[in-house]
């Protein structure tokens, strides 16, 4: 019995039960109390997401202001359990339209019970695809004997499709205007030493799609990744075009992608689900173009003063802009007074997080604004402890730029009716965990 959840609980931060669903009898009724007593009210909270109490294991996750707890009594599959929670939350979100928090749960608890019944039976995960569930679980589920006739047809049809072959797309979709939106979203994770050398750096990217296409279209996506290009030139027996090729370390795909074809032909071909979905994820560690370089010099002048100089260089094209740039520069806890000068943007001292927060709304490429600040400290003679410098953290978004250099070469849509489609492609690079030690 590798996966079988005995119960699932939704708790708020105080530990009140918002939703509980017992799937099996092998766990006692006082599970919530055990969780509250041994995890929520102790330092254990947050120290490990998997805990054993008595004979049961608690796998828990915090999402906004809700704890979701899965209780198991057997040697369960942890990865699958957490993935289930994540998928379930995504499903709930698609039903409530956006937010998932305590209020949303309280307002929709009947719906959640309904969904919990469908997505898990006796502890075994069932179908979690929002596409399919929305066919037969609706908030307007009224079916009085008088008005039921027109609906009668759809329902049995839906149940057929619940378990049908192409589980992620239903047939007979019609759109007036056939459109595909494709977003490449990359987040850059960086760890840089104080001397400016890159300790570790990688890009995790996602390709998000939004499809409004009629019928059962077949899509084919071409990227400028190395393997794909090599394979293609091999097939067409002509030399690969010069230009930048990207080496993807690892790729994962949405279930709609035909993996056999990817393995043999190295092309991404798929029948997309309707609406929004995540087509693929990838990871790149080689040849990452860092959008920003940060050059900090922080000097402690005696006991009571710290001098901070930070230069931020944008390394992307001069015609591009980064948006929403926030640079958090740590200062000691006992900061009394700060004074600063910047060549662009605004600075504030935020005492709650012990940081100078430097915001630049629009940051053009190939520029290097600087910040120079002087921080005065409350002189405490008793405390000799030196200040351990946390890293500088950065947030940003750079539209039309990919840190990996990945580009879409083509996106072909083929459907038997042969309609025309409009394709929209966007690129954006965001900061993941962008840390510069100082």
């Amino acid at each position, binding site marked *: 019995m*590798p996966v079988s959840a005995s119960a699932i609980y939704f708790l708020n931060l105080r530990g009140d039960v918002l939703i509980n669903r017992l799937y099996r009898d092998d766990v006692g009724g006082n599970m919530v109390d055990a969780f509250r007593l041994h995890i929520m009210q102790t330092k254990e909270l947050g120290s490990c997401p998997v805990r054993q109490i008595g004979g049961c294991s608690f796998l828990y996750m915090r999402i906004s202001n809700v704890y979701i707890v899965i209780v198991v009594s057997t*040697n369960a599959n942890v990865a699958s359990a957490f993935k289930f929670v994540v998928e379930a939350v995504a499903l709930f979100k698609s039903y409530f339209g956006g937010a998932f928090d305590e209020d949303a749960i309280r307002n929709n608890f*009947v719906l959640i019970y309904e969904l919990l019944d469908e997505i898990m039976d006796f502890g075994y995960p069932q179908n979690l695809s929002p596409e399919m569930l929305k066919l037969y679980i609706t908030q307007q589920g009224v079916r*009085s*004997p008088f008005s039921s006739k027109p609906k009668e047809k759809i*329902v049995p049809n839906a*149940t057929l499709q619940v378990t049908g072959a192409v589980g992620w797309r239903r047939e007979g979709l019609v759109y007036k205007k056939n459109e595909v939106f494709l977003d490449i979203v990359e987040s850059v994770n960086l760890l840089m030493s104080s001397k400016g050398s890159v300790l570790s750096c990688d890009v995790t990217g996602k390709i998000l799609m939004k499809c409004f296409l009629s019928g059962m279209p077949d899509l084919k996506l071409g990227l400028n990744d190395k393997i794909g290009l090599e394979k293609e030139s091999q097939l067409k027996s002509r030399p690969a075009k010069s230009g930048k090729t990207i080496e993807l370390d690892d790729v994962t795909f949405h279930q709609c992608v035909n993996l056999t074809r990817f393995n043999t032909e190295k092309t991404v071909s798929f029948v997309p689900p309707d609406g929004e979905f995540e087509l693929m994820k990838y*990871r790149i560690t080689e040849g990452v173009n860092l959008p920003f370089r940060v050059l900090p010099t922080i000097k402690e002048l005696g006991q009571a003063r710290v001098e901070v100089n930070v230069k931020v260089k944008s390394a992307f094209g001069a015609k591009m802009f980064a948006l929403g740039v926030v640079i958090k520069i740590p200062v000691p806890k006992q900061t009394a007074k700060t004074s600063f000068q910047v060549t662009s943007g605004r600075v504030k001292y935020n005492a709650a997080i012990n940081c100078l927060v430097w915001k630049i709304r629009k940051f053009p490429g190939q520029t290097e604004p600087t910040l120079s600040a002087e921080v005065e400290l409350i002189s405490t003679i008793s405390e000799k*402890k030196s200040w351990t410098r946390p*890293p500088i953290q950065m947030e940003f978004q750079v539209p039309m730029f990919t840190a990996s250099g990945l580009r879409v070469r083509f996106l072909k849509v083929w459907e038997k009716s042969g309609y025309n489609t409009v394709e929209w492609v966007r690129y954006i690079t965001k900061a993941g965990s962008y840390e510069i030690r100082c």
Partner: protein
Amino acid sequence: MAPPYQRSPSPSQPSGKGEVSDVKSQLRQLAGSRAPGTDDSKRDLFKKVLSYMTVGIDVSSVFSDMVMCSATSDIVLKKMCYLYVGNYAKYNPDLALLTINFLQRDCKDEDPMIRGLALRSLCTLRVPNLVEYLVGPLGSGLKDKSGYVRMVASIGVVKLYHISASTCVDADFPAMLKHLMLHDQDAQVVANCLFSLQEIWTLEANTSEEASSEREALLSKPVIYYFLNRIKDFNEWAQCIILEMVSKYVPPDSNEIFDIMNLLEDRLQHANGAIVLATIKLFLQLTLDMTDVHQQVYERIKAPLLTQVSLGSPEQSFAVLSHLHLLVMRAPMLFSTAYKHFYCHYNEPFYVKKLKLEMLTAVANESNTYEIVTELCEYAANVDIPMARESIRAVGKIALQQYDVNAIVDRLLQFLEMEKDHVTAETLVLVKDLLRKYPQWSHDCIAVVGNISSKNIQEPKAKAALIWMLGEYAQDMQDAPYVLESLVEKWEDECSAEVRLHLLTSVMKCFFRRPPETQQVLRAVLAAGIADFHQDVHDRALFYYRLLQHNVSVAEGVVNPPKQAVSVFADTQSSEIKDRIFDEFNSLSVVYKKPSYMFTDKEYRGPFAFSEEFGNMSIGVESEETAASSQRVEASDKELLLNTSEKEDKVLSNNGPAYSAPAYDGYLDTAASQVQSDLVSLEPPLPSHPPKTSSGIDLLSLGLSIKPTPAPTAPTLKLNAKPVLDPNTFQQKWRQLQVSVSQEISISPQGVAALANLQSLLRHMQGHSIQCIASGGQSPNYKFFFFAQKSEESSLFLVECIINSLTCKAQLKIKADDESSSQAFSTVFQSALSSYGTS
């Protein structure tokens, strides 16, 4: 759903009495009404009932009214009603009978959704005396034309099985499920049948042979291939379970293994981490006996695993990291180039950082140590104190496993200059361990340690370490006697018995080295010790006192003999346990780092008994071994009551003169893991805790060496296929005999790679009539004790074999009853060892 008695409502929640009766009367009014809009008001009312139920108010008193109201065609109302009924039926079996009627009627509804829902609710009533009503609908549900209903019914069968196993089996449901599993068109139905059958037959297998053969049949080739060929039809969750099942299948030949792996390779690209892990498990299990392919699998799975770590929430990456951790520990050298992936980010939760630190420690080798240690030093200055501590420990561990420790020692000593209490404390403990392994560094270390003021150190462990060094290196530290003196003066304030014990021993050692300066202190410390209320402290002080009274030079031999450097610190987990965890890949075992029986079986909950583990440690000797081990476990159980640091000493002295005898390793393992398991429940796991004081061990080295009696020579060497030797005799012999052959040989890289599975080596050696009596160690160092017996003669050969998997070298020490034939035996042993992994 909360059972009604679950908890008393908190003050913020309504007590519910008034509300419940309110709802009850409203339900009554609506029950008979057929006016338009009734459904809407019913819905609001039902919602209210359910929300009361969720917060734990007992609303079972409205059961009959709810049932009355349930005559409706509104599907949402129906669902709410089913939910309510399912929750309370178990505690109101009589009332539940009322619902049977409408549920049975709904099971025949024309709408498959309603049929399915009704059937599901019927199965969740969990009332034993209603099972008779269940068999009929369930049987027709399994044959229903709608996939949705069959899907519900196939899980319903296992629900029925849990209510009444006999009813389920008598109605022949398992056979129907099997038929459905192999013939149904609908993937989810097939998957649910598989879930149910696995569960039923596993439970049933204990009592019925037929069921266990059925369970075997699930793993037969046709069934496995049936699932594998349509694996892409199943949803991700079902795929996980199928992959898990296939990992138990043993393909007859290697072609089949490759077919399966080729078929499933694309699963490594799946977005669902659970599928990736399940596939990895399958690949690793399949290739367990194919050393080089196994190696390739490791290479192949590296990228997908690292991707899974960087995706998703911290909890998800924790789940994956735990598995990565296990693999890294099994094959550190394969991951040594990926060390940068294990660098910690500032905002990561501690549980992720801790795993990463452990992996950084494990993958450190000659080429990357500098970078890794530099990175770890960054963390040591971290604000987060637990993190800083863990990082320092990690640096220390790397120092203990490396050969070139020069630079690392410098770093450690720099920590001492940071003047942060927790850093100093942690570092002191490490410096002590380092000195025990590399006495040659004493000069550098002592110079720095000497500058530390004992006043700044509060933590008992660190204090004990400092005191140990003061005693051990008294001649190098100018003011050692005076520092000890000042510590003895504060004897009364010292609350840790561990520190007081160390103080006693250290003052003794100091006395032997610098008698005139220490005499005063010794008198004071012995007096204080004898007057101490702690039993151990009192006993040790008295013991020293009498020893000194008896003969000072004997006392010196006991307390302060010349010491050997510790080569390998005892490993905390036996390889047996590690293999078991590996077998249970992709489950909680990996996260908890213990095999499932330890946390799912009742008898293992709470304080864990390790006797079984020890019993498994030595192969070849069955009965005597278990008896002996159980005695020892009993003995060490008593030890649990004592101070933990004292433990190893005590354990050893209990065991008689066992120092350097083979059982020592294994036994210490048991002891150490017991200490650990004891600590685990109280605080975060500590690194393995080596013996602190030397006195216990010193005592034991007094054992006299007895010259072996020469035996007549034997012309040719034939070994007894099944020799018998109990561990105690082995220990005695090992102590008595002298080393007759000592040499270093190299092993083939294949052999080293196959070391990942220690058991197979032991079996291999058994095949050559060489038995293993104890094994242990952790990559890269493994230690084994083997023995063999000449056929038709009682003369024995004893072997200590230390294998280093990095250098591919093995060090042999052979002792023999009959020294003349030991060279011949050595040849036999070497050929046996070198053929390992090549066959």
